[in-house]
């Protein structure tokens, strides 16, 4: 019986977080704790000629200085595999401090371990490295001539070229075309909590307190990197202060923390500095995209040609899949998508909230607006004319799709029909006003491994559900408490969720907006399995009022089993357990996800509308309102789901107007701080209006949860860029849209 699911329940971990009682991975207090600080490369390419550790080793409090000449060699680097597979998930196929070669600025070259953090930081400054620098490539512009078409990207899962129909012929015939190049600056995640690992050895057993989206991903990756049996590693993730993808894959620092702890025979904490976060945990790569749309005179798309060019590392062919959703959002018979890469002196880029969807849909949805302008069609009408009734790349039916309702409701909220389509016609004092819209979509991807949870009830009727997942700030623990309470049929206050520990039943990492769907499946199955087990026990128990009843006719509410049509007949779980002298009962739930080859298109859809004000004299653009309507399937907690969507939309605004990591001529990120890498402040946040269209989805997972983690960010940048055009009459093809481009 559903009573808790959907309610806007406050976060179960909220009190611990806001009072400071919750201990994050860099706050674990342990006796004898030592501190490690990384020394990183100043140059993007070359080699370490000399590493002078004399002064550092003699500085006060220093326990060890580790580098390529003395770091014990471990196991091997596992292949790049998204942590959604539940296995080892190395962020790049490179492990530092193995030799003297430097592949990128910020590469970890040495590690100083000392009694205190201040001592370690000071000694790290005393490590003197002599470099032999060689020529480097760190930007699209520098590497354009060396670009190559990727065979595969994204850990080998996505082909470098995807084609359907005959794009060249279709474009030749198309009476209307739109063709442009677009540019998106590199982005970094910038969660408030910087990545950190505290490592403790007890004999040959290793415990890692790690800020991660997947405790099991950390476990498997470190096991391979150090050649330690996975059975001997435990990863604990009590709290995570945001991630946005930078803790989705496992980078070298957890293994380095473990190596440091082994070297000094003490627990070691390794916390990255804010500056180190810019070159230690991946980024969204700088990228250029070229998009050509062909359409007939009614606006029906006949061809899409979408090419991307971006830098990757020397080790891995990585590009965020910017062509993905952009190829699935509209019906179109002819398609060609190509990923071109440049081998550059950067680390391997990684998942960054809406990896590819945000950048690709900025391009697609800006181009659609231009097509609408060319055809003198309403932008929303153009999208409706190209509505994809089936998944365009495969022809499969959608598992669920509420996009038409999203458009309709969003347009109502935005009073879209009252919008004068002509640009540059509305003014409020010095501000020009404009409205823009865009479609949103984010794929629903199943995890690669079975998801598990354990439900346990005690004789007093209180219950705990355990699963290893990590709550990275999304509210997952709160939502899972609701799922568990409903599944078992106990009140919320008697249900506890235990999570964030690899010793608990296995789940994949909370990535790709998949966490709520996959973990709720396991939790729901475990809780209902325990419920069914207890009902079976009751109907078989001759002392139970339910003895002999058809278990299918027994329902549970508030911890009490009763007959559906005679609620007076029944008893509580507690009565049943106590009578049987059972201290507890438990059940394991396993969800076997559908395979990647499930014959359905699966996606969360949405429609976004933005109102902006542009001061063309001063080059200022301020967003006045954002409206988003989404179809996320079932919503587990209205409050945390809306917060997720709102956070996504605000990041979309930030992607449009503020965020960009600038590569300096010296091959280093030039604005690696929260002062200079701009994210919005509260004063930038507009009125954000969010609604959800709840669709029933029986394909994606047992509760029909499609996910809300990322879709909020998809399309926002285009809606804003389109609104800027509507305000000013000028198109913007480059993100972020800065003051100098608005002057």
């Amino acid at each position: 019986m559903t009573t808790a699911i959907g309610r806007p329940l406050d976060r179960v971990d909220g009190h611990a977080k806001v009072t400071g009682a919750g201990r994050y991975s860099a706050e674990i207090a342990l006796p004898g704790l030592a501190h490690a600080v990384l020394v990183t490369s100043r140059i993007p390419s070359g080699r370490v000629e000399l590493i002078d550790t004399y002064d550092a080793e003699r500085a006060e409090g220093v326990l060890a200085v580790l580098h390529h000449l003395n770091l014990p060699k471990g196991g091997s680097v596992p292949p790049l595999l998204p942590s959604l597979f539940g296995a080892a998930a190395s962020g790049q196929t490179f492990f530092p401090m193995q030799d003297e070669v430097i592949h990128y600025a910020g590469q970890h070259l040495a590690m100083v371990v000392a009694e205190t953090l201040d001592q370690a930081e000071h000694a790290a400054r005393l490590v003197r490295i002599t470099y032999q620098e060689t020529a480097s490539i760190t930007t699209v512009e520098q590497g354009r001539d060396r670009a190559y078409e990727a065979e595969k990207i994204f850990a080998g899962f996505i082909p470098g070229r995807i084609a359907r129909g005959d794009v060249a012929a279709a474009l030749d015939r198309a009476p209307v075309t739109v063709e442009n190049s677009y540019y998106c600056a590199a982005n970094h995640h910038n969660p408030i909590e910087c990545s950190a690992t505290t490592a403790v050895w007890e004999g040959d057993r290793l415990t890692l307190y790690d800020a991660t989206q997947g405790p099991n991903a950390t476990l498997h990756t470190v096991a391979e990197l150090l050649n330690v049996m996975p059975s001997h590693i435990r990863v604990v993730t009590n709290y995570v202060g945001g991630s946005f993808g930078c803790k989705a894959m496992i980078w070298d620092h957890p293994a380095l923390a473990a190596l440091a702890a082994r070297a000094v025979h003490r627990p070691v904490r390794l916390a990255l500095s804010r500056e180190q976060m810019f070159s230690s945990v991946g980024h969204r790569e700088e990228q250029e995209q070229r998009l050509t749309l062909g359409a007939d005179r009614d606006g029906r798309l006949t061809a899409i040609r979408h090419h991307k060019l971006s830098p990757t590392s020397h080790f891995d062919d990585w590009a965020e899949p910017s062509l993905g959703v952009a190829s699935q959002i509209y019906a179109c018979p002819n398609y060609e998508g190509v990923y071109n890469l440049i081998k550059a002196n950067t680390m391997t880029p990684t998942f960054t909230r809406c990896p590819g969807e945000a950048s690709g849909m900025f391009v697609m949805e800006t181009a659609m607006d231009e097509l609408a302008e060319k055809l003198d069609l309403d932008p929303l009408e153009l999208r409706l004319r190209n509505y994809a009734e089936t998944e365009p790349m495969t022809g499969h039916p959608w598992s669920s799709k509420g996009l038409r309702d999203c458009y309709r409701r969003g347009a109502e909220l935005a009073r879209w029909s009252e919008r004068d389509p002509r640009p540059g016609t509305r003014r409020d004092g010095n501000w020009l006003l404009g409205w823009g819209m865009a479609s949103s979509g984010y794929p629903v991807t199943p995890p690669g491994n079975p998801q598990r949870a354990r439900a346990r009830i005690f004789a007093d009727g209180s219950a705990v559900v355990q699963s290893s997942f990590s709550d990275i700030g999304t509210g997952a623990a709160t939502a899972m408490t609701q799922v568990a309470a409903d599944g078992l049929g106990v009140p919320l206050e008697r249900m506890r969720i235990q999570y964030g520990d690899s010793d608990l039943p296995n789940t994949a990492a909370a990535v790709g907006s998949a966490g709520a769907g996959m973990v709720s499946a396991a939790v729901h199955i475990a809780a209902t399995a325990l419920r069914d087990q207890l009902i079976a026990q009751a109907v078989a128990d001759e002392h139970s009022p339910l003895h002999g009843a058809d278990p299918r006719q027994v329902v549970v509410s508030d911890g009490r089993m009763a007959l559906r049509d005679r609620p007076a007949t029944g008893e509580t779980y507690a009565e049943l357990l106590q009578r049987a002298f059972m201290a507890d009962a438990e059940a394991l739930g396993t969800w076997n996800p559908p395979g990647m080859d499930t014959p359905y298109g699966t996606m969360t859809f949405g429609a976004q509308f933005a109102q902006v004000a542009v001061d063309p004299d001063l080059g200022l653009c301020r967003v006045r309102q954002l409206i988003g309507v989404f179809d996320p399937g079932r919503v587990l907690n209205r409050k945390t789901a809306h917060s997720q969507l709102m956070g996504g939309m605000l990041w979309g605004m930030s992607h449009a107007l503020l965020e960009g990591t600038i590569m300096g001529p010296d091959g280093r990120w030039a604005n690696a701080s929260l002062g200079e890498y701009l994210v919005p402040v509260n004063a930038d946040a507009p009125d954000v209006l969010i609604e959800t269209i709840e669709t029933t989805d029986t394909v994606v997972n047992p509760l029909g949860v499609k996910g809300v983690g990322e879709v909020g960010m998809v399309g926002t940048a285009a809606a804003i860029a389109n609104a800027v055009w509507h305000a000013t009459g000028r198109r913007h093809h480059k993100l972020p849209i800065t003051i100098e481009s608005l002057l």
Partner: protein
Amino acid sequence: MRPVSYSRVSDVATAIATVAADPTSAYLAGGTTKIDMLRIYAEPSQRLVDINSLPIDHIEVQPDGAVRIGGLARMNDVALAPVVVDRFPMLSEALLLGASAQLRNMASMGGNMLQRVRCSYFRDAEASCNKRAPGTGCSALAGVNRGHAVLGTSPHCIATHPSDAAVALVALDAMIHVQNSGGHHAIAIDDFFLLPGDTPEREHPLNHGDLITAIEVPALPAARNSLYLKVRDRESYEFALASAACALTVTDGVVAEVRLALGGVATKPWRARRAEQVLRGAPATRETFARAAAAEMADAVPQPMNAFKIELAQRTMIRALETLTARGEAP
């Protein structure tokens, strides 16, 4: 962090004597920049003398209408002081736009005058920087310089002066009161900020141990119609790309009195004297304002990434002047 020693003093004479006696020492007031600088090794002090208990944090109105602001007055207290809000709105606004509330509650006015530049190469202890390590070169010239200066630059340094409050104070002809073991003296604020020239490491005519005890803002009736306009990428927590502190009196359609200073575009808080000269006595029209703004920026030297600042600074001046003209006309 480099080991530092720390002591606290409670009277001005001891503070000055303590710091003057040790060349590796420095005053610690609000610490909102100093501690950051120490943590990133961009500041060499080894001994911090905490002066937060000194009794120089008052805001006093003088008989002649001037306002004397203690060197340790907090930014927020000055910004919200009724006398500042009423008589020098540009200063109140500059302070409020200059930092977040948390920083304003900590940061002192004296410290604000002495704050260091935000150039990322100055703050990177290992980069070449003539200001931090004279003679090593200026990395910003060939580096990322979107935020750097276009006025008052030299081949040795193009770092932008970061203060907002100082821009308003330069427009207001404030005096900086300094005390040292030899006694008191006062420095006109425009002389207090030095251009980088060949000695970018020297930012003020202060000697080691000199303590800013007060900032005096002379009476200026025209300042009641004044504003601070700050243009930046986001609404808060960012330094200006261009800003203007402006006071204006228009009589019968003619500029009777004007004060204008620029922030975000120059190596020091920049008094726009050329623009003032064009404006004074001229008709208060957009055409005049544009001509004045252009005159001020005529000698600007752009860098590859910041040429837009020359245009932006002019538009900022024009907007400030137009806004004040409209306000002055309002009944």
